[in-house]
């Protein structure tokens, strides 16, 4: 059973922008709410304002949280931007243990705070597991990442990911790929 708390997440700008560019923000639709810190909101508004209008997801803009010494220190160590810093603060302030981010430094910092992080690719693959999208659609979206988003991923790694996902789903009798 999914608890309300586990269904709350905090988002960094990357996944919101990339998923919207793929017309796939709906893969976040089963989260009860997605907290978006103010600095992230402004960043998304600057680069991809339409992502904030999505009707399929419940994005909740949050004022800048009170800075904590812990996150301040991590921000210095990992050279985090405002949005990433606010996202970590929000996670701590609201006891949210999941951060959506594609940024390696933010993910490292989150790890040291015991906050789980997931990025665009993981969220897409998860959408098939959660029956939010058909597996075949997800494979198409993964293939479109280089053309439609600015998510940095080595082409051979993306191919490996797609092949791995295809293999796993083909081996799973509950999943139909066609």
């Amino acid at each position, binding site marked *: 059973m999914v608890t309300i708390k586990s269904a709350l997440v905090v988002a960094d700008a990357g996944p919101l922008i990339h998923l919207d560019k793929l017309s796939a923000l709906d893969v976040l639709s089963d989260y009860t709410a997605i907290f978006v810190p103010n600095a992230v909101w402004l960043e998304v508004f600057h680069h991809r304002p339409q992502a904030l209008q999505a009707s399929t997801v419940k994005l909740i803009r949050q004022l800048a949280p009170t800075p904590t010494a812990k996150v301040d220190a991590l921000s210095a160590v990992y*050279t985090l931007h405002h949005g990433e810093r606010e996202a970590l603060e929000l996670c701590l302030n609201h006891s949210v243990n999941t951060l959506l981010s594609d940024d390696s430094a933010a993910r490292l910092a989150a790890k040291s705070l015991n906050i789980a992080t997931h990025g665009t*690719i*993981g*969220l897409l693959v*998860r959408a098939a597991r959660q029956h939010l999208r058909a597996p075949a659609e997800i494979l198409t979206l993964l293939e479109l990442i280089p053309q439609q988003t600015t998510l940095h991923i080595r082409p051979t790694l993306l191919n490996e990911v797609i092949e*791995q*996902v295809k293999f*796993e789903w083909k081996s799973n009798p509950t999943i139909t790929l066609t």
Partner: protein
Amino acid sequence: MTCAIQAEIPDQLWQQAQTLVSQGWASNMDAVINESLRRYLESHQDVLAESFIKEDVEWGLNGNN
């Protein structure tokens, strides 16, 4: 071997770095810049980004949330 660099950075960032030095967290500004650059490069290595993507795929396929 070392090399000298010249860079423009925001006042606030510079002041924060100076505070670290004055509080004894770093021996001098060279050490702060050296360590910052090293940590930046470490945290942005492709291999790290790739390991996160692989973790993501595993979670996407077999996670429970």
